[in-house]
């Protein structure tokens, strides 16, 4: 491959990376709860995207980046045993919460099990359909549904402890758009 061609590919990748990075970073932060780890996750995912850029550029580099991010997060979690950093894990149902309290949501999100957290972030931050999330995580759509449902139920219970427990519209909706 000529130098000029490689330079063009590199510039193309850099442009993609610059545009995708902000939302990937935020998704990574929502998933892992730690800014430094999020940076590492995105960096690692982007390296993998770069290695396949000539093949991915015509396809779905963003989807591949998301997959790498999630896989790397799981690998890193296994390797280090590091749990999500949560400064102050709130006691569930201990105070009245306001849906506007975004920081609170983020902290609560961090208390979910890893898989549920990944599913919730991919569904409700990235806005991906269930089938897409299932493909990204290598799990069945049913598992995505159940993980999302459980995760959202936990969040809802923590945020609205007085709400009826079987109000179950949380996982019923699928939103498109807002892609990471």
């Amino acid at each position, binding site marked *: 491959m000529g130098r000029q061609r490689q330079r063009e590919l590199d510039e193309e*990748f850099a442009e993609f990376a610059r545009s995708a990075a902000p939302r990937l970073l935020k998704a990574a932060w929502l998933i892992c709860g730690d*800014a430094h780890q999020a940076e590492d996750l995105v960096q690692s995912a982007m390296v993998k995207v770069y*290695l396949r850029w000539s093949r991915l550029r015509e396809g779905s580099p963003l989807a591949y980046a998301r997959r790498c991010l999630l*896989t790397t997060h799981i690998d890193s979690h296994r*390797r280090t045993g590091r749990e999500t950093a949560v400064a102050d894990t709130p006691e569930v149902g201990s105070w009245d919460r306001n849906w506007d309290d975004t920081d609170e949501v983020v902290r609560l999100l961090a208390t979910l099990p890893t898989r549920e957290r990944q599913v919730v972030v991919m569904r*409700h931050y990235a806005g991906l359909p269930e089938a897409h999330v299932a493909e990204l995580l290598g799990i069945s759509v049913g598992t995505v549904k159940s993980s999302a449902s459980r995760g959202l139920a936990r969040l809802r219970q923590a945020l609205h402890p007085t709400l009826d427990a079987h109000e179950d519209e949380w996982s019923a909706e699928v939103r498109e758009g807002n892609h990471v």
Partner: protein
Amino acid sequence: MSDTHELDELLQRATAPHMHFDPAAAIATGRRVRRRRRIATAAGALAAVTAVGIAVTAAVPGSARVLPAGPSRSSAVSPKPTGSASPSATERCFPSDNERGTPWASGTATGSQRGGKVIVEASVRDNCGNDVVGVGGMGGDAQVTVMFKAAPTTAQWVVADAAVLFLPAGERPCGYSFGTELPAATTLPQGNGWNLVIQPVPSDLLRTAAETGTVDICRDGSPVKRGLKQIGWDGPGTRAAANRGVGQDAAQGSGTATTGCDLDNLVGVTLPGAVQWVDETLTVPRAGRLTVDVQLHPGCTGDGHTSSWDPKQGARLEVDLPTVPARAFWDAVWVNDRLTGVFFLPAGEDLCGVDLSPSQPDPTPELEAPQRFSQKDGWTVMVQPLPVVGSPMTPTASFCTGQAVTTTRVAPSS
């Protein structure tokens, strides 16, 4: 608005801390990984250039007279990495990332040391600081890769599994320094007007041929070049230097893979004697495939490197070292769901235990049976699945001889 949509909105609105991403750093790292893979590919299984007998039949017709051997460039070195049998095949440059090279010559002939074919591919790579030769194994075949820094203008040759010669039209070999009775050679005309000659070399002559071999080149029955040395002979990375470098300075190593080489600094550089020290692929039970790839780059300094890429293709532990270490070391990789320790043990040493939780009074767990691979230099590579513990851990290992513990609390290299 539903709760679901509210959650969506909250997540969108949540203010993340300032985070930074540098595309240039991702590109630089990606290039480095590519280089590493390319080097590994070019290196191949040099260890296969060893004794596998082939029939000695006819020599090059009318030639193959014995020439005075060149000055001895070899030196006995111990310990010697597995892949050093053919030093000429270990000289590689670290090409920059932006070229794959222009194909220049190629061909296939029977007569590999492995029993199969010798497959030769030669290319011209503008950014190489030196000519590069690599030998890899593919089943019973040998893949010889030659990367010229510029298109040759005169005859070139190298012994790598077989003698491989690149000759201008009308020229032919008319005498080798390492033997008179050689198997029949195969001459393969190339589109560029050159001839590729693949000359099988009997296994008992191979080392001598690789280390000191020269060839006479004739045209119309008359010598045009006597004692032609092999590719890389007198370059910055001479084979003599390669032989001297490997193992001689073992004591300089810290005994860990962290005293390795930063490949980022090696673009366009030829280091003498970069060799494959360990190249093993195995299956970790109930986990998947693991490749252990250790290369030695005498003379270079910097950090070692460990990585595991693309779980679908199996995990990969890559380590770069300046030389054979002086002490046992190890690292751990995830092979899918299984944490796996890879222990590098010098002759006479063994793994005594793995301490997964130093705070526990009896932290050494029962370990599954390991897989072991013996290196020709006496080292053993031991692949040991490790138990997963629920809490954060910094595992350490202890090594011992039959009599005593030699080293305790050795942390993973990365």
